[in-house]
């Protein structure tokens, strides 16, 4: 991106799914005829006129033409408004911004993805990409945790993902029907065998970072092959507003995906 004028493109909501009591996914079609393409892991700014803007990772198949999806939790002014919006209503779209996942680097790798809660949203874009091109990676393992069964987003898709992915799930609290793992995502570390030399992507709350680093960084997984998708407050997307800085990096420009060797000593990421 060379220029920015802060005028969002007009997008129409053409699909909406409620994934949990406070989580929804919406499908957006841009109304101008200009192209829109993205790399999994990139984010967009969604504008709700009169309410504000929020950065959201794109969760749909990158090759999908004419529309894309975003998934969000209703936790603030904008997301709560967005949660209540219906098909046919309009939003503003800016971006995509950021680097996205290192797609070239992921080719032919044993890929392990660790996510928590809504962190699965940008990961889904990568999973759908691999579903279309199963040879893209050597193997795919997902470790995903949520607060409870109802908070496991994209539940109905797990069975089709299982055809090409080792899907491992855990929930903090469960009902009587849950026969899977109980506890936070760290519980899955002992249950899943991770091949030495794998590549790992972590997209979840910062509280899981330490356990991941202690267990895998520089051991099973090389530091340069361990990626974190950082969540920060991205207001402009182009490195001007300063909200998303982490030391010398802008999460909106240099990230949101960083390899561990790049941010290992960054005290704004790992304090």
């Amino acid at each position, binding site marked *: 991106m060379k220029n920015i004028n802060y005028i969002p493109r007009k997008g129409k909501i053409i699909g909406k799914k409620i994934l949990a009591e406070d989580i929804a996914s919406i499908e957006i079609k841009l109304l101008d005829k200009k192209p829109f393409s993205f790399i999994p892991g990139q984010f967009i700014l969604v504008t709700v*006129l009169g309410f504000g803007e929020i950065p959201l990772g794109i969760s749909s198949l990158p090759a999908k033409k004419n529309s894309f999806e975003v998934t969000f939790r209703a936790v603030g002014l904008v997301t709560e408004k967005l949660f209540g919006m219906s098909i046919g209503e309009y939003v503003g779209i800016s971006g995509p911004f950021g680097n996205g996942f290192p797609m070239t680097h992921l080719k032919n790798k044993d890929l392990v993805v660790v996510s928590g809660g809504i962190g699965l949203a940008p990961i889904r874009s990568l999973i759908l990409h691999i579903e279309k091109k199963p040879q893209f990676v050597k193997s795919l393992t997902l470790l995903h945790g949520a607060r409870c069964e109802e908070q496991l987003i994209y539940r109905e898709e797990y069975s089709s993902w299982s055809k090409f992915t080792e899907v491992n799930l855990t929930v903090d609290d469960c009902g009587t029907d849950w026969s899977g793992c109980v506890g936070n995502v760290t519980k899955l570390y002992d249950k899943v065998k991770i091949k030495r030399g794998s590549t790992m992507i972590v997209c979840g709350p910062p509280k899981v970072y330490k356990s991941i680093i202690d267990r895998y960084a520089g051991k099973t997984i090389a530091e340069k092959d361990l990626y974190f998708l950082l969540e920060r407050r991205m207001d402009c997307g182009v490195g001007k507003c300063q909200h998303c800085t982490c030391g010398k990096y802008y999460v909106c420009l240099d990230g949101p995906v960083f390899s561990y060797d790049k941010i290992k000593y960054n005290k704004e990421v790992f304090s």
Partner: protein
Amino acid sequence: MSLIIYDSQIPDLLVELAQEFKLYVPVEKDLASFSGQYIWKEYEKSDRLALLYPLTVASPKEFLLPSKDVLFEYDKEEIKKTKSSPQIIFGLSLVDLLAVERLGKVFETPVTDLNFKERRDKTVLVAVDKLSPPQDIEFDVYLQEIGDGVFASFAGSKLGKKIISKKYFENHKVKTPKIYTKKDSYLSDPDLSQAVAKSKNHPIWEELTKTCFGCGICSYVCPLCYCFDTSFEIDFCNNQQGTECRNWSSCLLKDFAAVNSCNYREELKNRIYNWYFHKFVRMPSEYGFEGCVDCNRCIVYCPAKINYQKVLRTVLNDYKKRTKK
């Protein structure tokens, strides 16, 4: 021969310029005024001009990056871009001119902020100072005071040439003295950036939290602090209409780096450190210059009387001691 203008001619020049442009000037206020003695404002004939002002409260940043900058207007779903009008900032000190130059680089590289650029392209810069005109900073007109109320006039652009060819300027045989600023010893210290970068664990940041209110006034008066928030303003009579604005912010404010699930810079000491890190580490690495022109506004208007020069000296001296060992 050189073109000069007498201060007695300047009000007439301003009246003429004000017909074509929005014209902003530094003026002297009532001494009893709480908000400071010198301010920038839109020119009125009754103003007491304060060319060669010692310091204005707010900097001329306001005219290029307004404290509330309307990015666009909307009516139902239709978005309309707002336009800026031609303007002259008349009377910039050399220090403030340098800040404008740097602000331009920040907003025009590597990604060009078209909102800023459109306004900058429509802005005429007239600097007034006792120092000689700079070689490497853009201006349209530069007036160097060479005697009491006498200014040698230099044009830095086509428009500047047009301005100084007006009848208020006279040809005179005068020598313009060459006067340049001395490079400040610590701001130009090659170790400064590294010293700040390596000082995250320095006790001074904790020490500063005892006095700093985290109010952000240093950012607002700084001619080079440029961080912003965006927000909507809704027309209360018609909630289908409104504007999106970007407003000045400050990285010292508590929620600056907060998202719903986490505040990534909750502790004041981390926010204070980030303020210095941005100005003296991140900006030098991004743009090749510090985010400080040494104007001293942040010292004068800080309610806690924090002096960044003292802070930097401490950090720099301790770094030098450490690295010598």
